[in-house]
């Protein structure tokens, strides 16, 4: 569970007997060093630190600030998709179709560009395509009561298929300078713009999830959708909006990625859905819903980014990265189970 609201220090802990009621709602546990160390985010932060130190010691140019800044290009777009994905998974839903949405948004931008749309409008073309795709997912899930995993396995084929129907075996190239500026550009000639965008969105998502009523309701829905509905939360509306939000963020990622690589190809963002989901789960978001933090997701993003960056500096082929990601995922979910509950199911 997450501890986002601070308990006032003045309230004395009440025992069930003292309250005189059959039911008691326990206070949040007091701040303690043990609680902090046991938290998933702390473990992730230590892991990140460890990866940083090991890489820094082994690789001579690892800590070069310009290299480090450029290393963020690797993961910024994926992480932009991982943020709304975290909200969806906390809400007990999932979206497998994000990479398909990204591909279709990129194709839509290519078509719009060839139709003579002004450069700045391409961002809105991508966002509109993403929102349309997200709305389709959301309507199928909420209106027809279908499981999100099946719906989005269907729509990922649909979206990617439509993109490949338009593209054939060709590619769109020649995107305007404005997109290159946002995809490859820097602020102050040093910090990649994509990374700044990611940080801004991470802050917004963290605020919404951890400091607003909407965020608390997302947790409530994830913990128990039926109880949430009985307590007056429009569960389906939240789900629909989250799917639309995920689509919009995939559209934004499409704008940045297309600008960065300067083209739309049939295999654009292939396999990204699984990488985004891995970031979310590694970040401590429970696949069963109801638990997780944006801070954890961002730490997972940075950890994976640092590992990737270190491996690429050591000239290790990218595919080894998939082994590392997979093992990290398996170890991180299996380890707490092995350490905490010695009892193994029979």
């Amino acid at each position: 569970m997450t501890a986002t609201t601070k308990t006032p220090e003045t309230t004395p802990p009440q025992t069930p007997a003292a309250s005189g009621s059959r039911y008691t709602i326990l206070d949040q546990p007091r701040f303690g060093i043990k609680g902090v160390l046991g938290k998933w985010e702390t473990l992730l932060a230590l892991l990140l630190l460890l990866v940083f130190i090991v890489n820094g010691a082994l690789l001579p140019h690892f800590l070069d600030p310009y290299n480090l800044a450029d290393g963020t290009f690797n993961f910024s777009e994926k992480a932009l998709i991982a943020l709304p994905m975290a909200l969806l998974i906390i809400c007990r839903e999932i979206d497998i179709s994000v990479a398909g949405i990204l591909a279709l948004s990129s194709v839509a931008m290519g078509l719009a560009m060839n139709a003579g749309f002004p450069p700045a409008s391409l961002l809105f073309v991508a966002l509109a395509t993403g929102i349309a795709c997200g709305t389709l997912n959301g309507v199928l899930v909420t209106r027809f009561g279908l499981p999100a995993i099946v719906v989005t396995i269907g729509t990922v084929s649909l979206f990617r298929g439509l993109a490949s129907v338009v593209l054939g075996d060709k590619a769109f190239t020649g995107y305007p300078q404005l997109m290159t500026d946002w995809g490859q550009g820097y602020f102050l000639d040093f910090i990649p713009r994509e990374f700044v965008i990611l940080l801004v969105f991470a802050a917004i998502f963290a605020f919404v999830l951890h400091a607003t009523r909407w965020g608390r309701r997302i947790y409530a829905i994830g913990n128990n959708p039926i109880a949430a509905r009985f307590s007056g939360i429009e569960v389906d509306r939240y789900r629909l909006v989250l799917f639309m939000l995920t689509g919009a963020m995939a559209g934004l990622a499409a704008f940045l990625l297309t600008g960065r690589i300067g083209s739309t190809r049939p295999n654009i963002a292939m396999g990204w859905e699984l990488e985004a989901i891995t970031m979310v789960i590694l970040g401590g978001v429970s696949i069963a819903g109801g638990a997780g933090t944006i801070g954890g997701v961002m730490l997972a993003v940075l950890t994976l980014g640092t590992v990737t960056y270190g491996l690429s500096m050591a000239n290790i082929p990218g595919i080894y990265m998939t082994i590392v990601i997979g093992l990290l995922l398996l170890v991180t979910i299996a380890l707490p189970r092995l350490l905490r509950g010695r009892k193994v199911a029979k």
Partner: protein
Amino acid sequence: MNAFNLKSMKRELLLAGSIVVLIVGVGLRAPVFVTGASLANLLTDSTLLIMLALAQMLVIVTRGVDLSVASNLALSGMAAALLAAHNPGLPLPAIVLAAAALGLVLGLVNGYLIGYLDLPAIVVTLGTMSVYRGLVFVLSGGAWVSSHQMPADFIAFPLARLLGVTHLVWIAALAVLAAWYLAGHSRFGRDLFAIGNAPSSARYVGIPMAKRLLWTYGISGLVAGLCGYLWVARYAVAYTEIAYGFEFTVIAACVIGGINIAGGTGSVFGAVLGALFLAVIGNALPVVKVSPFWQSALTGAVILVAVLINARDRKKEGRQILPLHLDNHHSPVRSAA
């Protein structure tokens, strides 16, 4: 499971009907599609998908999912290809056994993590999917194993004919029989349905859930390993990206076949028909001169339509307040006795 109850087979009959309509429709546009050779070719093309869908069905019935099948297939297939390429003298059965055994081991790893450690299937298989796919690269060093490196009998086996039908079809037929027995007529299979329908009840009546899940994922891995050899031999090439993304096609076949992703329901017939349906679409597109780029889009649309139809069916079922259980001896959750 009631083979003689037409009402309970409605979904499967509908699907079988659509497959026939599709074949006839395509046949009217392009008569070459309904020739014997073309249909036999279609059947051969669908076999790997059928086998994988059957194994996936057993997994989905337990409320799980195995996303690692395509990576497992690629790893086992690459291992078989390398084994054959480096030891031309090795008899073919040994190679097939090695591929199947490797697949089984990889599946059991999933099964242990999901069954004994009680971890969510989707996360575990997402992880092993990445790991297995990466290991294909490690094993091969990124190099391809092409047809001239593999022994002739290694490549010839899947498409060789026995009584006029390819070995692939025979193997798939055996797999269907085995799945039919396992799912409907063995204690093991019935336990899987019980687990998927009501996990806590299943545990309560004494079904050894961890053991059952271990071997369910084991079977899924075993089939993936066998299909790994068949895939590599059939297409006469092994490379890192073999069957990339095929796990979604397999799950799609199950979903189209009416297997509920929430667990507890599904039939062997449905899985076979779902796989056949996708194979027909894939083979029909080039014949009616639709660009193969449409295949993915059409598959997606078909999946969505299939889940919509299934969902509507379920709602109708819900309206009957007191269903008759009197003749229901084959109900999935029968007692463990």
